[in-house]
């Protein structure tokens, strides 16, 4: 499972672009142009990117609100993300919900909700359906370490274990759940060690090493695909900004931030690429420029889109008959935008 140069470039690209988009969104929010609040994955980019790249096209993933990179890997376009952030009529949630709560079954993305970690039991069901239909498909889902304190988390992990479904569960242990440090969320030393108590495979990996994350995820995905059941992966990282854009996070010790700043996942991969003779300042500058262009164009395109109409609020509470997912094939479903 060694990574090709192209694989490594892709990992780098997705992480960098994630950050560029989130930086763009941060500025946008500062200008009061966002609908809803901004939560970012600054410093954690290696996890969604490293994991989502381990999936096949017809696998399904249920990301959380910091997983920008996972959306990009699954083919979400930057302008779609900004359209969502601005609550545009033609966006994924059509202005009805906000943030990275974007669902799109064509791309195998389950849209999350705010209640934590409600995508996890849903992902168990996705994986269960794959198993029941004998499809060699895998589901993957992401959650923070704080979310492991919830009952929903336990019920889902335990059910995944008992029903032996092809599911990869990614814990992004970024040290904090809002203002609560990990040691006040749980008393065990790690999340990964819980795996054996559930009777499933577990792993703990440096969440700021995208290649290590990717390898670990790939192993888990292969295990799941070949009937080996679920895996719980703990990716150890650090939340480098406040919980959301309005949180100055004064409760985080500056030393902790400093210690992690030097472990930035983007810098680390770049340094390796440079060391391997695969990257240089020229390429870096070109990528930054390219990404800036992408983000600027995306913002412009999204900004030009139509805003929701007040009357849109009445549409879509219920699906209508014709609209049903009438296929149990591997592409699963036809999707209708919430605004349709």
């Amino acid at each position, binding site marked *: 499972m060694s990574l090709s140069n192209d694989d490594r470039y892709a990992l780098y690209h997705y992480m960098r672009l994630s950050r560029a988009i989130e930086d763009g969104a941060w500025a946008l929010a500062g200008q009061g142009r966002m609908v809803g609040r901004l939560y970012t994955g600054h410093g954690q980019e290696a996890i969604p990117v490293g994991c989502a790249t381990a999936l096949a096209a017809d696998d*399904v993933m249920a990301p959380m609100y910091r997983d920008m990179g996972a959306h990009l890997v699954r083919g979400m376009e930057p302008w779609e993300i900004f359209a969502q952030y601005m609550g545009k009529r033609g966006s994924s949630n059509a202005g009805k919900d906000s943030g990275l709560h974007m669902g799109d079954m064509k791309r195998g993305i389950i849209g999350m909700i705010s209640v934590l970690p409600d995508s996890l039991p849903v*992902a168990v069901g996705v994986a269960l359906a794959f198993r029941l239909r004998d499809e060699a498909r895998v589901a993957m889902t992401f959650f923070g370490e704080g979310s492991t304190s919830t009952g929903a988390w336990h*019920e889902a992990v335990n059910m995944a274990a008992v029903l032996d479904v092809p599911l990869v569960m990614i814990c992004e242990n970024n040290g904090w759940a809002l203002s609560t440090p990990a040691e006040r969320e749980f008393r065990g030393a790690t999340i990964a060690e819980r795996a054996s108590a559930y009777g499933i495979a577990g792993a703990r990996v440096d969440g700021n090493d995208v290649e290590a994350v990717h390898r670990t995820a790939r192993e888990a995905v292969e295990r799941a695909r070949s009937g080996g059941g679920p895996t719980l992966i703990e990716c150890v990282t650090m939340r480098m900004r406040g919980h959301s854009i309005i949180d100055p996070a004064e409760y985080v010790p500056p030393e902790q931030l400093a210690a992690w700043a030097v472990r930035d996942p983007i810098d680390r991969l770049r340094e390796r690429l440079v060391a391997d003779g695969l990257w240089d300042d020229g390429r870096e500058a070109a990528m930054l420029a390219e990404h800036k262009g992408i983000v600027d164009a995306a913002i412009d395109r999204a900004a030009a889109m139509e805003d929701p109409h007040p009357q849109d609020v009445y549409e879509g509470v219920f*699906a209508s008959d014709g609209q049903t*997912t009438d296929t149990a094939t591997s592409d699963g479903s036809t999707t*209708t935008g919430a605004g349709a």
Partner: protein
Amino acid sequence: MSHVISYLEAIREAMRQAMRDDERVFLIGEDIATYGGVYKVTDGFLDEFGPRRVIDTPIAENAIIGAATGAALVGMRPIAEIQFADFIASGFDPLVNMTSTIHYRWGQPVPLVVRAPAGATWASAGPFHSQSPEAWFAQVPGLKVVMPATPADAKGLLTAAIRDPNPVIFLEQKYLYRRLKGEVPEGEHVVPLGVARIARAGTDATVIAYGTMAHKAELAAQLLADEDDIAIEVVDLRTIVPWDRAAVLASVAKTGRALVVYEAHRTAGFGAEICATIAEEAFAQLDAPVGRLAGLDTPVPAHPAMEAEYLPDEHKIAAALRELVAF
């Protein structure tokens, strides 16, 4: 072709036919496979459909509902059983926050049925095996809520629920499971959601009810016909969400008098919604205030003496109707 079967057998028949017709349909819940469910509704299903389509789970209402939702999102048509409606509270969050909002938020249908035995038994099932939680779900946009009152409707509405592209809470009236038998069409039988049943035509007053109370209302109407020569119209809502306002308003326009009956706690029960609607929409047609008869604002007590006091029944309904007609 029809046959006479019980309410419970009608539910079984709907599920069995759906599972034979559509391989996407599967069952998930606690003790539904080997055991056939606490009320034996799925008895024999494991043998016929095998362990992939009749899945016993750990005790985990949240994960059952969440997992059923996930399966629905990728093309299955799960039927989740919650062992008692009372325990839906343990899986409340996914239903009201996740499952119910998916289509609204990103346009993906969630074809899912959550079945649960609901209501009191008149047999001391007590506070945690007797509840009627329909009002909670009626307050949540995106969930349909069904409460059949007859074997034929149990079959027809469950068939419609399974085919519906939306999450449907199907509250089976455990009191009726084995007690109520009736003619049920043998083959395919679909009763559309949202269309009330005029269980009995009448001119003096309208009773609006659903589930077990629709059954009790029919008994009460018979009592009044026999003993008082009063002609009561009984409107059985069948479904709470959506509910058939037109049928209710048409009946009230005809009779000028309405009594709403439900088994759940009176305060903030779904019947309040019916009363409020009639009061607003049929103001000019009403010859008497809209009456309400409901379960008490107490937990459902275990002892039969108190349980009988708690529950509306045909005699209490008849008494309320006599008063209403005399108003």
